[in-house]
């Protein structure tokens, strides 16, 4: 394949685009918005090019770019995507224009800085998903924190400073552990390059002692588990989500949380398979607690945005469970659920944001009977809620079904307990929906609220179409992720096990999953 700069372009286009915003006058809000939107749309179109050249059946990294960067220690500029990262990049480029559109009117202070932050955030996020060099990965991981910190801290709601600091401290704690682990891994393997380390481990040229593997796994895992977030590391999330402006919540829920589950799938499983197996029961139990606990706490929230935030804890629990079931079906489901959650929870935050724009509150008791003044928003809110609650033919069902079906084949009690979450998601979503949209209008001021305008309709319909499409045409996604999802289990094999059980356990998923 001829050298292509497509990934570099996709990664840095938003950052480059910020120069255009810098050239505008700071108070020229209209044009700042338009240019930012144009950049993000162009970026989305560009990222769609990835689909065209993507080889379906290959589990290898594609669109690879490799340059020397720092000779010693050997750090490279190494980009590439596979089926695991492909759609996460597209999710980012899809949600960014959405985030820009929903901020159109609601952001009035420091408009230019806001949109610059969003675009920098986009570059940082994509960078995380396409980096194949550990150091470079870490760099993007940290870079992306800064704009997010500003988004919450500057444009957030009442308790924004508390939330922003909590968010950054939590993430930094994980980052430090991860950095230590990366350096240690470099000491052991002599490389920062992920594919190289991986092949050294798979071929047995580098063997980690079980103790080392456990520690490395723990360090990486903790960093990612905070990001997901896994119970009981989740308490930064309700605050961050609730206090962030709508665009921040959309990106935070839509993309940033996926970095955690992405990291688990990219690093924790293939690099440290034996430790992953050892920890899997504990992780699964925490994930299941997260599913049920998140749903129950969501059920009793009085603040609509906080409710959606807790529902993320529940939904991401499904993803983590799917990853640690070590089953190709479940992993595929987990990958799909990452996308689903990005779209449908993103859409819920968009809708909650629209209510906030009109009433400047998130409290459920301030609403009631909104279906009468705003039928359009009410219909779409229900549509998205049903998607989130896993109604068949909408996106959430496919992911949850695959995760649970795959997990069930491994462990009946895990799948059965997790499936309780499906009952509960219908409870908290429809109950909240009833209190917000049904019944008589309790407050006179709600009577005159405007329904979605044209800009809002475009945003919501784009997301609704995607939800429907992902619910019906899931194969157009899963056939692109299939090879890479299976490959995870190939990468988890080791030639000489530290004990005989290890090797058995790491190939077991393939054997029973492949031919049944």
């Amino acid at each position, binding site marked *: 394949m001829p050298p292509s700069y497509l990934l570099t372009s996709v990664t840095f286009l938003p950052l480059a685009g910020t120069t255009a915003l810098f050239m505008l006058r700071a108070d020229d809000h209209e044009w700042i918005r338009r240019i930012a939107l144009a950049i993000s749309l162009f970026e989305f179109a560009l990222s769609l090019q990835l689909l065209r050249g993507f080889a379906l059946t290959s589990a290898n990294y594609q669109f690879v770019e490799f340059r020397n960067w720092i000779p010693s220690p050997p750090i490279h500029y190494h980009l590439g995507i596979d089926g695991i990262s492909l759609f996460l990049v597209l999710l980012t480029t899809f949600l960014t224009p959405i985030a820009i559109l929903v901020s159109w009117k609601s952001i009035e202070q420091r408009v230019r800085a806001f949109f610059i932050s969003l675009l920098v955030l986009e570059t940082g996020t994509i960078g995380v998903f396409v980096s194949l060099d550990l150091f470079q990965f870490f760099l993007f991981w940290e870079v992306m924190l800064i704009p997010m910190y500003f988004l919450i801290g500057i444009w957030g709601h009442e308790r924004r400073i508390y939330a922003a600091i*909590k968010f950054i*401290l939590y993430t930094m704690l994980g980052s430090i552990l991860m950095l230590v682990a990366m350096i240690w891994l470099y000491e052991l393997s002599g490389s920062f390059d992920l594919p190289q380390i991986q092949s050294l481990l798979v071929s047995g040229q580098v063997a980690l002692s079980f103790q080392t593997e456990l520690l490395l796994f723990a360090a990486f895992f903790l960093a990612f588990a905070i990001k997901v977030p896994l119970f*009981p590391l989740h*308490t930064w999330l309700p605050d961050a989500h609730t206090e962030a402006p709508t665009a921040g919540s959309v990106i935070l829920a839509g993309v940033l949380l996926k970095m955690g589950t992405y990291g688990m799938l990219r690093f924790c499983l293939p690099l440290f398979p034996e430790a992953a197996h050892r920890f899997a029961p504990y992780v699964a139990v925490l994930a299941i607690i997260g599913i049920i*606990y998140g749903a*129950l*706490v969501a*059920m*009793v*929230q009085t603040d609509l945005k906080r409710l959606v935030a807790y529902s993320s804890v529940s939904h991401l629990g499904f993803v983590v469970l799917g990853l640690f079931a070590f*089953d*190709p*079906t*479940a*992993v*595929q*489901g987990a990958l*799909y659920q990452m996308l689903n959650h990005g779209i449908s929870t993103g859409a819920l935050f968009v809708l909650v944001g629209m209510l906030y724009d009109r009433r400047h509150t998130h409290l459920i008791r301030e609403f009631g*009977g909104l*279906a*009468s003044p705003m039928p359009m928003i009410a219909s779409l809110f229900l549509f998205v809620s*049903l998607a989130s609650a896993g*109604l*068949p*033919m909408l996106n959430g069902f*496919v992911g949850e*079904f*695959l995760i*649970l*079906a*795959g997990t*069930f*084949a491994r462990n009946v009690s895990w*799948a*059965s307990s997790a*499936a*309780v979450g*499906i*009952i509960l998601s*219908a*409870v908290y979503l*429809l*109950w909240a929906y*009833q209190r917000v*949209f*049904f*019944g*008589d209008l309790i407050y006179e001021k709600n009577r005159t609220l405007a329904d979605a305008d044209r800009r809002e309709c475009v945003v919501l319909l784009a997301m609704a179409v995607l939800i429907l499409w992902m619910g*019906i045409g*899931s*194969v157009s996604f*899963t*056939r692109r*992720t*299939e090879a890479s*999802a*299976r490959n995870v289990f190939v990468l988890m094999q080791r030639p000489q096990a530290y004990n005989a059980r290890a090797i058995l356990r790491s190939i077991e998923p393939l054997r029973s*999953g*492949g031919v*049944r």
Partner: protein
Amino acid sequence: MLEHLWLIPLLPLLGAASNGIFVSRWPRSAVNAIALGSTGLSFLATLEVAREFANLSADQIPWLRSYFTWIEAGSFRADFALQVDQLTLIMLLVVTGVGWLIHLYSIGYMPDDTGYRRFFAYLNLFMFFMLTLVLAANYLVLFVGWEGVGLCSYLLIGFWFLKKTATDAGNKAFWVNRIGDFGFLLGLFLLFRQFGTLDFAPIFRNSAALPVETSGHGVLTAIALLLLAGATGKSAQLPLYVWLPDAMEGPTPVSALIHAATMVAAGVYMVARSHVLFTHAPVAMFAVAVIGCATALFAATIALVQTDIKRTLAYSTISQLGYMFIACGVGAFGAGIFHLMTHAFFKALLFLGAGSVMHATGGEQDMRLMGGLRKSVPWTYATMFIATLAISGTPGFSGFFSKEEILLAAGTGPYANSVIYVLGVITAGLTALYMFRLLFLTFHGVPRFDQKKTHVHESPRIILAPLAVLALLSVVGGWWAAPHLVGGLNYFDNFLKLVFLASETSSSTDSYSGNSQLIATVFGPPMVAAFIGFLLAWLLYIRRPETPKRLAESLSAPYRLLAGKYFVDELYALLIVRPLVWISANFLWRAVDEESIDGLVNGVAREAGEIGDRLRHLNSGNMRTYAAWVILGAVVLTTLLVWTVR
């Protein structure tokens, strides 16, 4: 038409889409045309399918068409595939036929307000999902329909969303069904784990080859019981029946179509569809029969004292669905489907008739405030009278054949159980009692409402026409299934037998032909019971209408138990709902999340801040202090060095 099966569900979907999304300012006549037209075309397409189906050879059945791969990942694969066999065909005819009649009725019934378009969009959407459910060729597509009809039920129960009771009832329906679906989903996972697919054909083929799990342990028993959990939710059986009475908050045509004729029968359909799994799991069969029997009796007793006309009918529906479960549980799947069909006719008619009464009296639902209506609404009265005769099992009417066939199987079939048979017979008596009570309270006696205020008028023809058609079906709908021993052709049973061949338990009434003694023994008791029920109703509500009140007073404890519907709702609220909300709010959220976890995190932060604050004082600027620290540090480092190198 067989080549284009997809048209049957798709037509109503297009109707729903155009009424729900695209056509925002079209007049009412256009809405009607779209809604009626799409459903009507779907019905015609079904008729054409039936015609072509008759020409298929046995090995072409089930006729299967796969349209696209819906889900494919890892080792899982499910196509969007539809199939037609005899069972599907009957369900298709019932759903599209009765569905179309109810669409027609709704045009006359629904008030012309802003919700008119929305109503028909939901109703068409329901048709789409219900048709998908019965056409599905695998459990996953069936689940699409299964959840979809649940959604439409939720939307239509809460159709008048300004009323809190309506939206509460909608939520309840959705949630209780979700509990059943939890079991259903686990059943699907187990099916997938066991058979590696969710397609009907390979599952039934492979499970037919497995031994019958007489011991009650085994994967098929587990699967069947999990599927049964789903069926109890959808078909409103014990212990998940609680949503159906509340569902009467929805518009009456919805009660007729969704909560009587079609959707609630989906559980019965699913069990019949999975007959191979059930017959290989006798324990599950027994569970089906017991649940059905208990529900039939339980709901019938509640129906005796209800005062709301629609709620009486709702409990009656639950009770009749119990009969269908009994049928499946005793291996008479054909009889179950037969009763499903006749029930669709007479129960839809009863609900539509109740709607007509409400239309006539300005929305009154309380039977205590009716009475003597038969003269002012003669057509409604006549049709409802026919339906009452049918449901009570009057010889010659459709309900007679289906109910007798079920009780026959319960009494003499391969899974016969005398307790279930006796309770079934008692329920038949109760059925006649509560149904004639309803009829007498509503139409007979003296008017108990203010005749000056309420001007009672017969409904328009568009409402009466569907009543007339359904009344005709309630009479003749059973004839083509009349068993040989009463001189019938038994066409229905023979037609369906091909589907249930694998189970080989079809308790055909043919074996009894000619034996007049047996006829009397097996057919007699239910008829006698029904007649006693009718007599009691006549005594209590016509002859001596003051007795029921006295009875209620003298038997006040049992009466209150029945009137309070055995206080099951209150029990669930006390044991499940309230504790769950309380624990979530006070323990999980406040105590665990905010105080423990976040308290710990913020505590650490505060401590760190305080330590930092104290450490700040170390930077005192005092040279001697610094020197002391340097020396201390050097000593510690040296010690460590020596200790490690050693």
